């Protein structure tokens, strides 16, 4: 064992297994210290700059944003971390690697706390054993009897209910209300879903199967993907030309333009048809 301990800072509790030590008295174990079965742990409080939290890809445990906000808010309220973080001193980086409590450290920093209470492993551990400790702290967390938990939760005021990280939805205590809206409903839009396929037979067959389903309410129009690109270009051109943003309105305008063009073509065909006998007359 290294001997960089500050004897004045030592407060032995139970032989050498648990001690309180100053941050500067933390030892960085090496293989030379041996891989004993008993893990020696010291308690300390260290500046957050000494800690190295696990990278996201090395930590299976994650928190939702709501949980992280809650935790940071709790730490800010307490102005303290109320459960110690477990760290392992890494001899190479001279940092304390956080094995358990990574989110607590992140939340403490968000709460503006710079001194973190830690339990420091003071024995040499193999990588495998460190990893096993890390996983076990997340996995072996026990279960709750929902009856007791619910009763305890219910005894709290709103502030501490929120603090607990539990909500009414953690328990089956809210009676569902069935309140209709007074609204009379929107216009009955006709929905057309355009499915565009690359020339892939399997996918095509799959869509045909969907078409055949009697319960499907939507209308499926199948087309080649290239056709959709042309339709897309046409809709976008109409939107830009007519300064329209809504797609349904643009499709309607596109249809109007198509009808207008058809009428023009019909008129042109009529003119041509009327002109044809004259040409014939010339020939004769």
């Amino acid at each position, binding site marked *: 064992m290294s001997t960089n301990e500050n004897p004045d800072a030592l407060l032995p509790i139970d032989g050498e297994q648990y001690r309180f030590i100053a941050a500067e008295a933390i030892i960085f174990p090496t293989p030379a210290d041996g891989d004993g079965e008993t893990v020696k742990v010291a308690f300390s409080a260290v500046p957050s700059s000494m800690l190295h939290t696990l*990278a*996201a*890809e090395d930590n299976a445990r*994650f*928190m*939702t*944003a*709501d949980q*992280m*906000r809650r935790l*940071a808010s709790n730490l800010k309220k307490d102005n303290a971390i109320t459960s110690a973080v477990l760290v392992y001193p890494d001899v190479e980086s001279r940092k304390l690697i956080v094995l358990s409590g990574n*989110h607590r450290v*992140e939340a403490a920093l*968000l709460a503006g706390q710079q001194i973190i209470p830690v339990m420091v492993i003071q024995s040499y551990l193999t990588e495998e054993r460190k990893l096993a400790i890390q996983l076990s702290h997340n996995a072996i967390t026990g279960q709750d009897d929902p009856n007791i938990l619910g009763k305890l939760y219910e005894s*709290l*005021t*709103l*502030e501490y*209910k*929120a603090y607990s990280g*539990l*909500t*009414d*939805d953690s328990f089956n*205590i*809210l*009676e*569902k*209300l069935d*309140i*209709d*809206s*007074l*609204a*009379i*409903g*929107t*216009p009955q839009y006709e929905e057309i879903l355009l499915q565009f396929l690359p020339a892939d037979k399997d996918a095509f067959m799959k869509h045909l199967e969907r078409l055949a389903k009697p319960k499907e309410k939507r209308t499926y129009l199948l087309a080649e993907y290239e056709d*959709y*690109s042309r339709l*897309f270009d046409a*809709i*976008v051109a109409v*939107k*830009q030309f007519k300064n*329209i*943003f*809504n*797609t*349904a*309105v*643009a499709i*309607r*305008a596109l249809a109007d333009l198509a009808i207008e063009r058809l009428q023009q073509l019909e008129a042109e065909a009529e003119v041509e048809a009327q002109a044809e006998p004259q040409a014939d007359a010339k020939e004769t």
Partner: protein
Amino acid sequence: MFYGAVPTACIEQVFRILDFSSWKAAYVCCSGSFRIERALKAKFPHLQVFSNDVSLYSSAVGYLACHREFNIRFEGALAFIEERPDVNSFFEKVAALLVACDMARYGGRKNEYARKHFEYYVENFELFFNRAKDRLDRTIPEMPLDGYFCGDWRKHVKQAIESGAGILAFPPFFKGDYESQFKFIEDNIHWPAPDYDLYNPKMLGDIIDEVDASGAPYCILSDQLFEHRKPVLEYVTGRKVPHYCYARTDKSSVRHLYKAPEPFAYDPINPANLTADSQVQVVQAESRHMDFIKDIYLQKTIIHTTGVANFLIFIDKMLVGGIIYSLPKYPTFGHSTIYLLSDVTLCREAKLSKFIAYLATSKSLLDIVSKKLISRIDFVVTTARTHNAVSMKYRGIYELLNRREADDPAEGNIINYGSKMRAETPQEIYSRWYWPKYGKSYVNKRKS
């Protein structure tokens, strides 16, 4: 109909924390669409309920539920209703009013979409009118009100206190909220509208103090927290404004409703394994999958919002990160702009975050977004928060559009970046730009 309607999930909380069976009567302030009244009458049929509001919509329905009437005359854009032979009785006028309130969404706007919708309602008025009559026929018997006061909700509160009744108040969170919602209706329907002083939510603290001092049972909803008063109900969902309730009760209720992220199997990127021939794959993804990735790899306190298109980026089947686009709130940079809501990277090494940000400008991705939105997208904007003058991630690949200091100086700068679409595929971006510029040197360094 009502943009500020109290969510049912929040009303469920109100019913959990208050014991209405001990109330002599309930004075509901700012009734809106009478959701509370209907829930109250369903559970406590013998409880006397007195409603209140200032809007024509609520007042008409409230009067109908009290078997009272007032004059309603449709005019201006809604004059066609007045001319209909089937809109005569008060009941029929209230039904027509329900339709008019739905039409109001389109009546005040001039664009083609709104005009066509408004015309649709006019042409199919009878259909909607019949629906409204059916709705009233079903709803009014569910809410036999004992009284309705058309006027300032603060007067209703005073009346409740004098009567020894309980108070349930759901005042608007924003000043002038009702007035802006009902402008079209007020402009096109004549009715004996009440005079009242515009309510400012800043007054609420004092109002609650007064109600509390009166000894009356009460429950007042707000989005505000007060230093000297603790709420008994907290309702939070997504990024929406939280709802708090102040009430005389020993009970309390907390709800935080969020969509749960959905974990999926993936192999995280190891940049040391990249090669010049690595293959890039872009996969469209669901929001719940993106939320999972963001919960782990993005700033931990950001509440997620849903985008219009999500992509996961893989290199050699290893997940590198994800891209989420959303529609810009305002067309500040033109209508062909898409907002890059998130560009999350799993690994901070090898400038992979720059690769993802660059990839977000690829024509291959933007074409998919364009076709999904049926709108031409060729410009990407995003926002970076940094304590530096520039964001290292976007520097050199996006143009700095503008920069300002965050309201909280501790948050540093808020910088908007933009980039034109790049006519390159993800694979071309990797092979032509990323690998020679960043990837190769990183891998060589690792090897040495």
